[in-house]
């Protein structure tokens, strides 16, 4: 008889090996899955895992894909540590794309080194404005920020669609719902000639290191951790929960908005209704895979980027279905949650009691408020 019981101390070893174990188990599950659907598993895994690293263009595309995921997840993980659940990064990302893109269009044809920083700023402000709604409702009226931020996403997507079908539509574009292609001075500088690797990729490590410093050495970081782990203690220590909510939502909204502005002006180069492709939601997986740690998040974003680009390679080379990417990401999250359980809990063998069923209270997994992953 096995029983789940809380560990006296959270397992440090498991805390940091969990992402690797989850990745390993995802590969094992994918291997079995490929066997079941009658595909050569080693060949398929090779395409998924090796192909993205096989040439310089694919490597640059990994960075292009990982950059927005990392930027968004860096902001989200700050809030998740403090029990502030911003689920609407997708909407803040979209607003960033709208505001950055609208700035680019407003200064169409204007040359100037100031333009691109202005676009980034506009994107950040757009994301922050969108995140300020759940922040205000939570701090003033106690409305759950999960629901509000999530629902704001749908408004953002519709707003983008309305704008590109109306005021921001390309005047020479035959009424097609998309903006004109941005002028050269409005697009982010390219880091590597001949690729799409843009300056946004260089921003990621700077933000990551800054947030790492903030959470580790600054009082704000300490207060957020304390409020997240033991809210009561945090309040006794005099930290304001409302300030934490505002701080986390402004940082995560601003970073998601920045990612949106970079994505619209960079790889896409115009405003189209299809800009929101789920980065804001995938970034939630990235944040947890990266252990809510700024440096971990960067590597987690790269891992998710591999799943996207590797999934495309497997499609091209072996005609595997497009759903493969979603399945792999789902498996990764599944295994992560399983192993996460064992950071705070352990299995213990218990001798079955003799005669008759045992009282219900003693059977089944014991879950208490204390501890936990």
């Amino acid at each position, binding site marked *: 008889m096995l029983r789940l019981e809380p560990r006296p101390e959270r397992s440090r070893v498991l805390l940091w090996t969990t992402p690797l174990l989850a990745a390993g188990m995802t590969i094992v599950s994918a291997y079995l899955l490929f066997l079941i659907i009658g595909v050569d598993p080693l060949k398929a895994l090779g395409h998924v895992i090796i192909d993205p690293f096989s040439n310089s263009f694919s490597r640059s595309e990994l960075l292009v*894909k990982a950059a927005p995921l990392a930027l968004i997840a860096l902001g989200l993980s700050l809030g998740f540590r403090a029990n502030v659940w911003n689920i609407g990064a997708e909407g803040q990302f979209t607003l960033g794309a709208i505001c950055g893109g609208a700035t680019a269009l407003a200064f169409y044809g204007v040359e100037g080194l100031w333009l691109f920083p202005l676009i980034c700023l506009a994107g950040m402000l757009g994301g922050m404005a969108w995140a300020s709604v759940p922040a205000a409702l939570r701090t003033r009226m106690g409305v759950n920020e999960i629901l509000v931020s999530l629902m704001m996403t749908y408004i953002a997507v519709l707003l983008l669609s309305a704008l590109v079908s109306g005021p921001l539509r390309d005047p020479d574009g035959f*009424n*097609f719902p998309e903006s004109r292609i941005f002028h050269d001075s409005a697009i982010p500088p390219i880091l590597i000639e001949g690729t799409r690797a843009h300056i946004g990729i260089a921003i990621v490590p700077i933000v990551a290191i800054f947030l790492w410093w903030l959470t580790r050495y600054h009082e704000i970081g300490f207060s957020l951790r304390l409020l997240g782990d033991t809210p009561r203690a945090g309040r006794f220590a005099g930290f304001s929960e409302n300030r934490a909510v505002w701080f986390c939502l402004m940082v995560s909204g601003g970073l998601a908005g920045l990612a949106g502005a970079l994505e619209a002006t960079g790889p*896409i180069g115009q405003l189209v209704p299809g800009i929101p492709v789920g980065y804001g939601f995938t970034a939630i997986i990235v944040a947890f895979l990266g252990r809510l740690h700024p440096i971990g998040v960067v590597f987690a974003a790269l891992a998710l980027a591999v799943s996207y680009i590797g999934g495309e390679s497997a499609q*091209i080379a072996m*005609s595997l279905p497009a759903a493969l990417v979603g399945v792999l990401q789902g498996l990764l999250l599944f295994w992560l949650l399983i192993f996460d359980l064992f950071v705070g809990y352990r299995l213990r063998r218990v001798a079955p009691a003799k005669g008759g069923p045992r009282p219900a209270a003693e059977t089944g997994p014991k879950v208490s408020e204390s501890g936990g992953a």
Partner: protein
Amino acid sequence: MMKRRTFLAGATALAAPLPLRAQSDPLKVGFLYQAPRDDKGWTERHELARVELQEHFGDRISTTFVENISEGPDAERVIRQLAQQGHELIFTTSFSFMNPTVKVARQFPNVRFENCTGYQRAGNLATYAARYYEGRHAMGTLAGLMTETNTIGYVASFPIPGVLRGVNAAYLAARKVNPDVRMRVIWINTWFDPGKEADAATALIQQGADMIMQHVNSPAPIRVAEENGVSAFGNAIDMSEFGPTATLTSMVFDWAPYYVQRVQDVLDGTWGSGDTWAGFGPGMVTLAPLNDRVPADVRAKVEAEIATLSGGGAHPFAGPLNRQDGSLWMAEGATPTDEELFGMDFYVEGIDGSLPT
């Protein structure tokens, strides 16, 4: 309109001969789909054509497809990967892939690209589309003859010329056979959203429509029509399985003959850029078998209409033709050029309501 002319001129100027290919290896042909390949609509027709293409040429070619690619940042990378991996002819089967295709085509001058429904061309980038308005003209004749409430409902996606041509063509055909007919249009600003499509169809039926036409891709309007005992017209594929009684016919696209021709051109070394816009004539547009409910005399009229359109006889938009505001668009005896059709951004006279702006 300027833009299209500019690009047409550009296409001719850029039409430098592409290198001949080595004959030994199978020709690699790539396809990019915006939706899953079995989407019961637009993409499925392209996928069926790809399968037919592969069967036609056997081991002389090998085809690849990548499905469910959004119009966001992924399209450019995937098109580029197809080009990099030795695909010599790449079909990108959605308007939303136009700009990414243009970008990649510039980087791979030796690869031939074809974009469906786009308007930008280059020496190695051709465009192709079907004259849907011909199909909708024939369906308009059918709707005009079959309606009892004299009201046709139309579930439309975006107010772009490609969709407006269909609305106008259907209305003009219906009015020709039934002067009392009215057309009601609901714009839902999406190509695929079963919920919105069903809501729009329901609203149209409540407004008295007993014929539901659609330029959106899910079978939801057909289902709503079936439940409400009115008639409907399918889009892109034969949708009669979703409403066996309601579905009078569906407009079906057949891309296979075009794909076969273009691959043959590459094999022969005669591939050239350009714009292909075909209708009933070459069979790119067809109507699914008409419902048994359609009486023989109506059937004969629709078939005659299709025969005329196939032969290039009467043009659906032949003048005299006014815009909704009463201003003259096409003078008596004139027929619009393709460029004029491409710029159609208005309702013709007689259609109620105003266009969303």
